[in-house]
């Protein structure tokens, strides 16, 4: 396939979750997501006080696509990459930072939260997340048997007739 899968396993997943939670608590961020470059949510956390988040599937897809387009622009301009993206609105900010080559840390926070503070904390978290994702590359791939295919095909019949 085009690129290796990025799989988060039990203990590593818990560590990623804990790091994002710490970041949320320290920086005052509303939502924190770890998204893979293909646009799938690997992990997400939201502050206790935060309202229901928008559709995370859509957020992840748009963030990853935006990052891909930005990376293509960087290459055209002779840069290896643009490692961060900031989108500031009237009420809130979207901050995206690359985590190694496979993932993107996505933080959404209110405009009352200083961007500088979020950047400081995320610069500290990103290398720790990258280290965990690096460890995962050595884990053997999951094997799904024929039963999985049979079960999934039955569900496909239900969904699509």
């Amino acid at each position, binding site marked *: *396939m085009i690129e290796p899968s990025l799989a988060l396993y039990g203990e590593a997943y818990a560590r990623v979750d804990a790091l994002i939670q710490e970041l949320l608590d320290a920086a005052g961020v509303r939502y924190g997501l770890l998204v893979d470059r293909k646009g*799938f949510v690997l992990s997400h956390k939201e502050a206790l006080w935060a309202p229901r988040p928008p*559709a995370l599937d859509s957020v992840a*897809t748009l963030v990853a696509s935006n990052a891909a387009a930005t990376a293509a622009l960087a290459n055209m301009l002779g840069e290896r990459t643009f490692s961060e993206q900031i989108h500031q609105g009237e009420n809130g900010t979207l901050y995206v930072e690359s985590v190694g080559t496979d993932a993107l840390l996505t933080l959404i926070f209110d405009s009352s939260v200083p961007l500088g503070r979020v950047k400081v904390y995320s610069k500290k978290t990103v290398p720790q997340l990258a280290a965990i994702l690096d460890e995962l590359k050595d884990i053997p791939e999951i094997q799904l048997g024929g039963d999985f295919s049979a079960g999934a095909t039955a569900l496909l019949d239900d969904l699509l007739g």
Partner: protein
Amino acid sequence: MSTINFAAREINCKIVYYGPGMSGKTTNLKQVFAKVPGHLRGEMVSLATEDERTLFFDFLPLDLGSVQGFKTRFHLYTVPGQVFYNASRKLILRGVDGIVFVADSAPNRLRANAESMRNLRENLAEHGINVRDVPIVLQVNKRDLPDALPTSMIRAVIDPRNELQLFEAMSDKGVGVFETLKTVSRLVLERLSQTK
């Protein structure tokens, strides 16, 4: 390659609708969005121009349900078909697990069909992948056109070795849409469960 999030017990697969401009890729997604019950699908995101031509992509998440404890999801994407949006098409192919090639039955789009398939091969090759390594299903759309070409002629320019499963469709009426999606989904899931 599908993303398998083991701790969250999720499997996510990416299916891309490819093909020449105006062949009906977005219409396929709109039909799926309209007919799949709301609790099994997410919002449809369309990045389109003012005249409703796809600018970057359309996106629709579908929930298959739980298989052996894994919540299994499909993310459906379309690419912009117009020739000059190739950079966008290339980006969207990243991480693809299955492809629906939507061909146009109109006689004056025969060459566009062939060029789009060649473009797909080139873009996959740029990602270091052979076109035979990804499940691809061929949908020949707009079969209700009065001057629709025979499917054999369309296949001859897109798939001369007769390797792809072919479905005839009238996507604006919903005909052939689900059959195509079901087949490519099944092929993706079979590949996922094959021992590597």
